[in-house]
């Protein structure tokens, strides 16, 4: 059996988070090449600062400046860095106890070789030239007994209150064994549904299992490209990525022989004239544009047949 269709899926988005006063202070100070911790209930200085004491849970507020030099307390060696990591050459992840701190900060150390780094090694921050108020304002740490670059003058009027973290993840998305013939069918202009062996409902698009019976669907059913509008809405609101200027009609279309309607675009009729029960037919894109996608059907349009009686689709609403 051939493997189901699969394709790369890249998921990318920015998380934008408010910092609150504690992390905001930490990130603001990083911009000025200063590292700031906070004193815990037991007197220990936590770097990065914690909002609440990890033992007593009381709110913490006494900021303490620490050095941007320190000592490696533990490390591992990354011979093949992954996307997004601080260095694109082999480096060490390390827990670094900065001078004046009692806890350790996680960051990268540019040590060149695992033979060059040891627990107890002295390191200093390598500050980024263009700092934005993020943990990545420290590019990495380097092995050194020397002080790091000195702090810059603080400009108190523009504190960091938000932090943007881009996330990019990569997947291989696989179609299910039941979606596969559906997608391959679309490439040939055919509409392939699946029938549940238990309840005999016909699903288009197919699903890996019948949601009523929990059993995989097994029988393929080829459907025509005509159907009935079960319900619809008139889209008046513009949104990001919209392909057609509003107003237009999004309709649930129940293909003849199917038991589940799907959402598609309805054109060729004024929105105010669209009705539940209206008979429609698919308008396909030119064959050379077809792929494994429902977008091969550009839209539906009225077929001119008389409206379907309510009873014929009332169970599919």
């Amino acid at each position, binding site marked *: 059996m051939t*493997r*189901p269709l699969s394709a790369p*899926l890249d998921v990318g988005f920015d*998380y934008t*988070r408010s910092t609150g006063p504690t*992390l905001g202070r930490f*990130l603001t100070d990083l911009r000025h090449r200063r590292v700031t911790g906070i004193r815990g209930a037991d007197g220990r200085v*936590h*770097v*990065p600062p*914690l909002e609440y004491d*990890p033992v007593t849970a009381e709110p913490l507020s006494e900021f303490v400046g620490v050095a941007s030099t320190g000592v490696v*307390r*533990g*490390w*591992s*060696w*990354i*011979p093949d860095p*992954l*996307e*997004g*990591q*601080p260095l694109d050459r082999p480096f060490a*992840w390390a*827990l*670094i*106890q900065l001078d004046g701190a009692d*806890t*350790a*900060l*996680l*960051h*990268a150390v540019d040590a060149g070789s*695992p033979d060059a780094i040891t*627990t107890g090694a002295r390191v200093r921050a390598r500050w980024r030239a263009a700092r934005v108020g993020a*943990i*990545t304002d420290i590019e990495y740490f380097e092995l050194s007994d020397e002080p790091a670059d000195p702090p810059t003058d603080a400009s108190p009027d523009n504190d960091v209150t938000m*932090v943007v*973290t881009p*996330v990019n*993840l*990569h*997947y*291989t*998305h*696989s179609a*299910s*064994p039941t*979606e596969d013939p559906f997608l391959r069918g679309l490439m040939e202009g055919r509409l392939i549904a699946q029938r549940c062996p238990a309840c005999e409902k016909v699903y288009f698009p197919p*699903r*890996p*299992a*019948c*949601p*009523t*019976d*929990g*059993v*995989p669907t097994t029988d393929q059913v080829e459907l025509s490209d005509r159907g009935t509008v079960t319900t619809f809405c008139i889209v008046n609101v513009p949104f990001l990525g919209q392909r057609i200027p509003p107003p237009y009609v999004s309709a649930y279309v129940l293909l003849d022989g199917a038991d589940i309607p799907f959402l598609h675009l309805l054109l060729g009729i004024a929105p105010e004239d669209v009705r539940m029960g209206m008979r429609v037919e698919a308008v396909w894109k030119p064959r050379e544009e077809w792929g494994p996608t429902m977008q091969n059907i550009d839209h539906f349009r009225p077929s001119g047949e008389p409206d379907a009686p309510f009873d014929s689709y009332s169970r599919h609403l």
Partner: protein
Amino acid sequence: MREVAVVGFAQTPCVRETDGTTNGVEMLVPIFHEVLGGLGLTKSDIGFWCSGSSDYLAGRAFSFVSAVDAIGAFPPIAESHVEMDAAWALYEAWVKLLCGEADTALVYGFGKSSAGQLRRVLAMQLDPYVVTPLWPDSVGLAGIQARMGIEAGLWDERAMASVAARSRAAALSNPLAQLSGSPEVDELLADEYFVNPLRRHDCAPITDGAATIVLAAGDRARELCERPAWITGFEHRVDSPSLGGRDLTTSPSAVAAGKAAGAEDVEVAELHAPFTHQEILLRQALGLGDDVAVNPSGGVLAGNPMFSAGLARIGEAARRIHDGSASRVLGHATSGPLLQQNLVCVMEGRE
């Protein structure tokens, strides 16, 4: 107080990569069939359903909703989900049964780790302000923890390799395991480092898989199962998310969960330790002596299906009660980085 027992358990084979979708339906349908069929139940006999999975692992939103197709949720069912290992879903279901809101529950977890890059996906569970932006990978973090224990004299690379060797040997009797064999410790130590001080054998493999457990209360449990695994202690605890703010050579949350759940005097313990040194750490944190059979299934070093591996530990431990080979067992699950969150479930068989 009602008593609740594990009465059924099923899991998929642990494999490096399945052809299925990330919503798990293809993996779940057969194990639901197996666990319900084995108990003579149908879906309408289940009072509560609860699952554990992750959208970051699946690379799609609400993947757990698509997974419900595997149940056949009509007429409507009582259902819940945790974005954690399904061992925590089991905890939710256990509470539901204790409260008398249901007499039976089916809990499941699933994950297709092969779809993405697991080491990067797991960065999404770290502190989003000061840690995730560096994209620390799960193996790199574990390497720091392993080294700290080595340098503190708590374990060494040979002891770590011994854990891997024992896991693979134990997995020879587990037909669902992904990795098994009879490697010599010296052979393993001859390998080069993967992420120094870790070698590949120190790290659980990347695994696709799913698991399910059926819980039942009181007389219902006795009807369904000749020898139910009665839950006598079920606790979970969490440590600070600040990686550099806690002692990584131990796990206060595992110590506390073990103490609260009554981890003593168990004969078998299935530990959710994705890295060899973490098994040594957990044995110590839970006070498990040399007389305790640890991970007779091979544990997650032999197959680590994300979001169901912890649930499967409890299932594997319960199985030793069901088959009469043990009378008091422990299942452990972990979540978060470097054993940050720990759950302990102690079960007993009764004559």
